[in-house]
């Protein structure tokens, strides 16, 4: 790993320094901020002026200075100072890592010395308290491997702690689960094997062949039962030991859980059986001395099986996050010292030039500096079509380069990349709580002890009023009650659905902040859409060219574009882009003069050109010949018309407008189809706003709203008693997003960690709002199904276990059936949550979907 090219020509792999002329050292120093040839010379001169430097050359393209110096006379810090003094930066990398074995203050100095002795390391500080080293180094000279090797050479060990979201960590988690599953399954098989034998031999009189061999109260049967007692003890110790230790540890914390109930139930059955076996004389009648070892063994085995199935299903629940983590690229090919080297993705630094070939994964976030390509971003944004990327545009790490090769400058690496942010947000959201969970939390503290109390009450009632043999009935009822109660199903009901729902959102390019946002999103009544950037692209484009007075459209646009090239007005850029988009070469203008609030004038190709609004034309006494009527028409369509006059005569109109996103209309129709009121909010004038509203099929428009008043308008709608969502960009609309019950931030590209929003849509489309609300509705439906199912299960199961059906129908539940029901109920909850994963977005026309 690391800078292989450097290491190859170096005498030592750890120094990372090339062998230069005898005694002299040569380093490549990164220099940032180089823009022109003059800068190159300035930096070169500055470096050469440092005493001890024998040669310095700066490469403008690479942004790097190659310096040869005598290490006895000068060092890297002095060289960096020189670059800085010349007005440029020499960027460094910083790394923090944990070191094992720091026991004394002298270790600290020793390690710091070793680090500082490594060429390329500028600063190093080791803290004894945190056992952490903080190292600043020049990435062109040393790499992280060399830095860590220096720690090793001092006799200490660098603790490898891969980032928490690394694929390795996910693998380890999966491995741990697999091991747990294997262990539970072994416990189940052992329990099942002993259980089959125990079940048969507990009731030999039910089996014709055994009936004669093992009659009741025979010595032979006693020996078999004694054997079963030992066998079931083995099951308790091996298959059931986690219930008993779990129960004991719970008790030490004065808390009771599922383990407590299972341990109590199976333990009571075992103790009763053993007493009946060893001291039959204390029981008044022989029918009371039957053993119930089968209850102990079979219940333990079945609950183990249930736990194993639960674990399997749970593993599938968190698949979404695994998929996200698996997206990360492992290596990157970067340009360092003019060479392409492969390094691990953790070592890519901000500012590195990364080379990506067709079919390769883009390793980190950045902006293209050379080349172009189509990029498949579906894994991050959910957008299925490849996106064309050209120089200057953003690329997102973990997306797939399809067609062309390109180079890009890394802008975000490590834990700052879009994907790392997404993973962190999804993790946090999955760990949050849905507000309805509060009910469960309130109940769960009382649940398990209450079940134990119910079991005791059941025992007392049956013993006091039950039919003979009362103690047997009482025992069965108490044990069944303990076993059928399932706090797990209740406890898992909401977290499982939440995990699946949040994961589902992430895979569709929707980041949900937490359970609360999810629960509120399904209750929404009103959606406020910001116009600019949400319904529309947020960037004006050239829409109409109207030529008059003998000019043709091409000439008009060519000249207007030529003039606007010199302007910095945002509308000017739209005209220039539009003209270039039609393949026109734009001539240069002279005598450019901008008149604020009016327009511009300039000379181009020997003609005098005026470009501006109606007022400008009137001021310059240009006859409009009906062009003003046409302009009004365009303005009614939500466009901004600009008049052009050439040599004092009207030449036509160019109009620009912020255009509506392709799928906005469809998304708005879908939202209204879901019974939501949709409102548009904008700072634009009434006429433009109405025009856009007409295009997308909206009736309610809040126009001419100042940016700072947006939050107030959200509040006004909330005062109408409605649950209001605000959709807008996360920066300008932040107060409104925060005021809304649910704030949707439309994110674009790599800027996904938007603080003010409850839900972030990675793909900048309104379709995401539709999907997010659908997902929240589906998830909350799932949550309620689980909660109600788990409540009903316990509400019905407990009385039946207590024997309320016995007086009427003579039905008494067996503890074995209770164990099956209990395991089944918690597996059902997880399976129901997993069912959510098969959710498919409904189409706008209200098509199919579960």
């Amino acid at each position, binding site marked *: 790993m690391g800078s292989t090219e450097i290491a190859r020509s170096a005498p030592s792999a750890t120094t990372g320094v090339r062998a230069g002329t005898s005694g002299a050292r040569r380093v490549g120093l990164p220099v940032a901020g180089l823009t022109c040839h003059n800068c190159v010379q300035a930096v070169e001169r500055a470096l050469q002026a440092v005493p001890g430097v024998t040669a310095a050359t700066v490469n403008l393209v690479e942004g790097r200075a190659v310096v040869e110096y005598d290490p006895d006379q000068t060092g890297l810090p002095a060289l960096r100072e020189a670059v800085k003094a010349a007005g440029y930066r020499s960027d460094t990398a910083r790394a923090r890592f944990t070191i094992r074995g720091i026991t004394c203050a002298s270790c600290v100095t020793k390690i710091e010395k070793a680090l500082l002795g490594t060429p390329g390391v500028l600063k190093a500080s080791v803290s004894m308290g*945190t056992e952490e080293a903080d190292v600043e180094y020049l990435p062109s000279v040393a790499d992280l491997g060399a830095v860590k090797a220096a720690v090793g050479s001092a006799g200490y060990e660098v603790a490898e702690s891969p980032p928490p979201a690394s694929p390795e960590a996910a693998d380890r988690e999966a491995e741990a689960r697999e091991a747990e599953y294997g262990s539970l399954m072994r416990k189940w098989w052992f329990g099942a094997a002993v259980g089959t034998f125990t079940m048969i031999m507990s009731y030999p009189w039910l089996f014709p062949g055994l009936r004669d061999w093992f009659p009741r109260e025979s010595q032979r049967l006693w020996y078999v039962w004694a054997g079963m007692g030992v066998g079931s003890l083995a099951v308790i110790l091996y298959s059931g030991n986690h219930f008993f230790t779990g129960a004991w540890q719970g008790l030490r*914390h004065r808390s009771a*859980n599922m383990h407590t109930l299972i341990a109590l139930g199976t333990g009571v059955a075992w103790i009763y059986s053993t007493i009946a076996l060893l001291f039959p004389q204390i029981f008044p009648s022989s029918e009371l001395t039957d053993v119930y070892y089968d209850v102990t063994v079979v219940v333990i085995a079945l609950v183990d099986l249930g736990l194993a199935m639960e674990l399997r299903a749970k593993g599938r629940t968190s698949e979404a996050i695994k998929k996200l983590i698996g997206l990360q690229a492992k290596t990157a090919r970067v340009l360092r010292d003019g060479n392409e080297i492969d390094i691990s993705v953790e070592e890519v630094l901000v500012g590195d030039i990364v080379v990506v070939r067709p079919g390769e994964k883009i390793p980190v976030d950045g902006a293209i500096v050379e080349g172009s390509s189509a990029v498949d971003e579906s894994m991050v944004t959910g957008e299925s079509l490849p996106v064309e990327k050209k120089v200057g545009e953003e690329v997102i790490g973990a997306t797939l380069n399809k067609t062309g090769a390109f180079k890009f400058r890394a802008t975000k690496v490590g834990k700052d990349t879009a994907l790392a942010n997404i993973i962190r947000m999804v993790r946090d959201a999955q*760990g949050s709580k849905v507000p309805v969970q509060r009910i469960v939390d309130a109940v769960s503290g009382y649940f398990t*002890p209450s079940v134990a109390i119910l079991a005791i009450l059941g025992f007392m009632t049956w013993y006091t009023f039950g039919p003979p043999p009362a103690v047997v009935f009482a025992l069965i009822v108490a044990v069944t009650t303990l076993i059928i109660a399932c706090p797990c199903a209740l406890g898992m009901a909401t977290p499982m659905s939440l995990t699946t729902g949040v994961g589902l959102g992430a895979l569709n390019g929707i980041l949900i902040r937490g359970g609360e946002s999810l629960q509120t999103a399904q209750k929404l009544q009103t959606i406020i859409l910001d116009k600019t950037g949400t319904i529309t692209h947020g960037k004006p484009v050239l829409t109409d060219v109207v030529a008059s007075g003998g000019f043709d459209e091409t000439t008009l646009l060519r000249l207007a574009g030529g003039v606007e090239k010199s302007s910095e007005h945002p509308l000017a850029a739209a005209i220039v882009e539009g003209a270039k988009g039609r393949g026109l070469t734009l001539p240069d203008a002279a005598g450019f003069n901008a008149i604020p609030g009016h327009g511009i004038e300039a000379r181009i190709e020997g003609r005098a050109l005026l470009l501006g609004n109606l007022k400008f034309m009137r001021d310059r006494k240009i006859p409009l010949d009906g062009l003003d009527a046409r302009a009004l028409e365009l303005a009614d369509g939500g466009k901004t018309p600009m008049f052009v006059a050439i040599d004092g005569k009207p030449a036509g109109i160019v109009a620009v407008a912020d255009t509506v996103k392709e799928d906005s209309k469809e998304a708005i129709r879908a939202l209204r189809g879901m019974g939501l009121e949709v409102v548009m909010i904008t700072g634009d004038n009434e006429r433009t706003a109405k025009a856009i509203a007409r295009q997308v099929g909206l009736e309610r428009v809040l126009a001419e709203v100042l940016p700072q008043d947006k939050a107030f308008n959200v509040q006004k709608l909330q005062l109408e008693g409605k649950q209001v969502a605000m959709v807008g960009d996360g920066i300008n609309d932040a107060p409104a997003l925060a005021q809304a019950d649910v704030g949707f931030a439309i994110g674009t590209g790599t800027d996904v960690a938007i603080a003010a929003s409850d839900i972030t849509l990675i793909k900048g489309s309104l379709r995401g709002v539709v999907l997010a609300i659908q997902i929240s509705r589906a998830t909350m439906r799932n949550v309620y199904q689980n909660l109600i199912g788990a409540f009903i299960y316990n509400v019905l199961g407990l009385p039946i276990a207590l024997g309320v059906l016995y007086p009427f129908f003579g039905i008494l539940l067996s503890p074995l059936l209770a164990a099956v029901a209990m395991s089944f109920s918690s597996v059902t909850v997880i399976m129901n949550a997993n069912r959510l994963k098969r959710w498919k977005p409904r189409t706008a026309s209200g098509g199919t979907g579960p």
Partner: protein
Amino acid sequence: MTWDKIVVDVVGLGLIGFIVWFFWLVKAKGVKAALTSGGYQEQMVLVKGGYTPDVIVVEAGTPVRLNFVRQESASCSEMVLLPAFDKSASLPEGKTVPVEFLPKEPGEYEFACQMGMFRGKVIVE
């Protein structure tokens, strides 16, 4: 009612009384988190069948770092949540996972596993 039934019922009621007292009436004493040189109030929390200690007393206004160590494989305790501080962390077995937060207001704040079976409390004074 025969004497054996009376005995069973008296013992049963006694047990119920014990359960109520044991789980609901006894208030656990808290452990005061130690202030370290880093300026954090630190406390190690063992995750094994519950949280040890499960009541942690801290002072308001000073950042708190709880170092959770999970020493069991049961998947129930995989995560720890502090809903009041919007914090959650997954706890790999055997690893020390720090959770940091800044308690501003005095009060009692719960922390729990995802299913709410394991519970603990941070008392901010």
